[in-house]
C-alpha cells in the first residue's frame, strides 16, 4: 500500500500530462459515457466513476482504481465521442496507465505479462502482429477451422500477390534500416526504459535482439561501401 504522499505524486503525474486538460473539462455526472461503454457492461468499471474521481481529486480512490479498473477499458473512445463536456474518459485512462507503468505498479506488471509476445514483436520488428502468431494453438477458442485452406504457412503467404506481405514472422517485410531507426525512437523516448521497469527478462531478450540487428545493419553498410569502392 502506498503512502498518501506517493498517491498524491501519482495523481500529480496524471494531472501533469499535457493531455489532461484536453480530456477533462468538468463532469455532469450524467453517465452517458458509462451507458455507452462496452467494458461497463462486463466489468466492475465505469468511465463516469473514473472521471468523477479525477475531477474531485480523490487521490486514494484514484490509486485504488489504478490497481485493476483502468485495465478494463477497451480504448474504443465511444465515451469521448458522446460526452457532452467533450471529456475523453478513455484518454484519461490511457494517461493513468502510463503513470501506473512509470510507478512500477504491480497491477501493470500483472496485466502486461500476457502481452509480452506482442511487445517483443513490436519493439524488435516494428510490427505488432505476424502470421505465425495467429496459429490455432495460440487461440483454441477460435475453433479448429480458423482458415479455409490448409497448408504450409509459408506457401500460403507466398500466394498473396503483394511482395511485402509474403512474410511469416512479420506482418510485412520491414527493411533493416527502418527497424534500426525504430530502436533509436524507443531509446530516445524512454520506451525501453519503461519496458525494463515492467519486465526485466523481456527487456534483456529485446536488448540482445536490438544489438544483433544493429550489428547486422553496420555490416550491411560496410558491405555497401566496399561495393561502392569497387
Amino acid at each position, binding site marked *: 500500500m502506498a503512502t498518501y504522499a506517493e498517491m498524491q505524486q501519482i495523481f500529480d503525474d496524471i494531472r501533469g500530462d*499535457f493531455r489532461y486538460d484536453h480530456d477533462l473539462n468538468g463532469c455532469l455526472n450524467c453517465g452517458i459515457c458509462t451507458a*455507452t461503454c*462496452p*467494458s461497463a457492461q*462486463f*466489468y466492475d468499471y465505469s468511465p463516469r466513476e473514473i472521471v468523477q474521481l479525477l475531477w474531485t481529486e480523490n487521490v486514494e480512490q484514484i490509486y485504488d482504481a489504478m490497481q485493476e479498473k483502468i*485495465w478494463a477499458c*477497451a*480504448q*474504443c*473512445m*465511444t465515451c469521448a*465521442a458522446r460526452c457532452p463536456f467533450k471529456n475523453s474518459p478513455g484518454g484519461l485512462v*490511457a494517461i493513468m*496507465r502510463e503513470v501506473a*507503468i512509470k510507478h512500477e505498479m504491480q497491477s501493470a506488471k500483472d*496485466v*502486461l505479462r500476457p*502481452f509480452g509476445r*506482442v*511487445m517483443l514483436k*513490436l519493439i524488435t520488428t*516494428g*510490427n*505488432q*502482429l*505476424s*502470421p505465425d502468431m*495467429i496459429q490455432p494453438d495460440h487461440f483454441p*477458442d*477460435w*475453433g479448429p*477451422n*480458423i*482458415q*479455409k*485452406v490448409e*497448408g504450409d504457412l509459408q*506457401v500460403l503467404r*507466398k*500466394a*498473396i*500477390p*503483394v*511482395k*511485402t*506481405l*509474403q512474410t511469416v514472422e512479420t*506482418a*510485412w*517485410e520491414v527493411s533493416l*534500416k*527502418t*527497424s534500426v531507426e525504430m530502436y*533509436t*525512437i524507443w531509446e*530516445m*523516448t*524512454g*520506451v525501453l526504459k519503461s519496458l525494463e521497469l515492467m519486465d526485466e527478462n523481456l527487456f534483456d531478450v529485446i536488448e540482445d535482439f536490438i544489438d544483433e540487428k544493429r550489428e547486422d545493419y553496420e555490416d550491411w553498410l560496410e558491405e555497401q561501401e566496399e561495393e561502392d569502392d569497387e
Partner: protein
Amino acid sequence: MSEQTPGNHNQNGEGAGAGTMKPGYHNTDGQGIAGHGSFFQATDLSQEEAVKATDWVRKHVDRRTIDLGDRMDDVREHMYELEKDGQIIIHRITDQHEPATVQTLFGWDKQVPTKQLWHHKSCGQCGNIPGYPTSLLWFMNKFGFEPGKDYLDETDQTSCTAWNYHGSGIGNVESLAAVFLRNFHQAYVSGKQHGHDLGHFYPLVHCGTSFGNYKEIRKFLVESAELREKVTKILGKLGRLVDGKLVIPEEIIHYSEWVHVMRNRIASELQTIDVSNIRTTAHVACHYYKMVHEDAIYDQSVLGGNRTAIITSTAQALGAQVIDYSTWYDCCGFGFRHIISEREFTRSFTMDRKIRVAREEANADVMLANDTGCVTTMDKNQWIGKAHNQNFQIPIMAEVQFAALACGADPFKIVQLQWHASPCEDLVEKMGMSWSEAKKTFQEYLKEVEAGNIEYLYNPELAYGGKV
C-alpha cells in the same frame, strides 16, 4: 398502423429491417414519437406540411452550423500558420493527387487524394486479413494505376504502434509522434527513388487505429511547441527532417475514404455482379469516427448524414441492401489487450452485441467493416459462440473485399478469403460464384507457388526502391 404523429413513419419497412432509421422517417410503431412521453401532442399536420416543417427545422437546426466554440477548432488552420512561420513543412495535396472533396461531421471540407498514394499498411490486416490490402491494390490496378508512379508499396515503414499503446500503456505521446513523423517523412520523400518530386506519393493509411491515432497525435504536435521540439531532436538524429523541419500531412486519409470517393466509379466501371439480393450490415470502426470525430466523413445522401457515410455509401453504390441493426454504434469488443488476454470479454461482447444482433434483427448476409481489429474479432469469435448457446454466424469482411467480389475478383487469389473463419463461402455462393470451383483453382495455384511461379500485383522490385 395509425397516422397519429407528424412526419413520415417507416410504415412500409422500406429500406430495411428492424430498427432502421431512414432519413425523414420516425421509427415508431404508432406509439407516439420515439423518446417522448404521452404528454406529447401531435400537431395534426398534413403529410405535406409535416415535410415542410421538418425541412425548415433541418435547415435551421443543423448541427453542421452550430457554434462549436473555441474548443473545436480546425487543426489545419493552425498548421498553415506554423508553416507560414517557417516551423513545419506541410505535405500538401495537389492537383496531381486528383483529390475529391468531401464533407466531415461539421460540414468542413476534406480533400481525399485518389492517385499517387503511398500505402501505409496495417500490421493486423497484413498479418491476419491480407485480403484488405490486396483488394485495394487490385482496384488501383483495375483503374489503370501504374505501380511506382500512381501508388507505392514499400518495406520502409513500421506499424503506428498504437495497438500496443492502447493495449499496454507502454509508449507515450513522444514515441507515437516520432513513429508517425518517421513514417510520414518516408512517404514524403519516397518518390525520389522512383524519379519523382518530394511529396509525390501521399500516404494512405490502411488501419483505423493508425488513422485515429495519427490524427490525435497531429493535433498534439500542432498544439505543443514542447512536443515538437522533443521530436525534432529525434527525427533530426534519424535524418528525417526536411530543411531542418518536421513534415506533417495536410490531411490524414483512411483507405475506406478512398473507397468512399471511388465508389461510384467502382460501381459504374468495374462492377460485374448484381448484389441487390445481398443484405449487408455495417460496422464502422470506432477509431474511424469516434476518435477526432470532427474529421470523419458524413454525407447528406447517406443515412441522412446522421451517421458516418463510410461503408454504407459503398454498399449503396454497389446496389446491395443496407440493413440496420440496433447495436450499430457499439464497438466490436477488440479492446487491444482484451483480444489477447481478456478473451471472455472480447468474444462475449462481439457475439452478444454484434453477431447475434445482426443475425436476429437484420438477418444479414454479410457484416462489412473498415478496420483491422473489428474484422479479426467478429470473424474469429463465432465458433466459440456455440459454447454459450449462441450459434450465430455471419460472414465478416471489409467493404473493399466485398466490393472486389462484386467486381469479379477471385475470392482466394485476390480477396484472400481463405484467411477468414466466418462462413464467407455462403456469401460467395449467394453472389453466384462457386466456392468449391474457386477453391479448387486456388489449390492448383498453390502448387504453382511452390514451384516458384508467383503472380504479383506489382513488380516486386518496387518494394525495395527498385525501378519499374
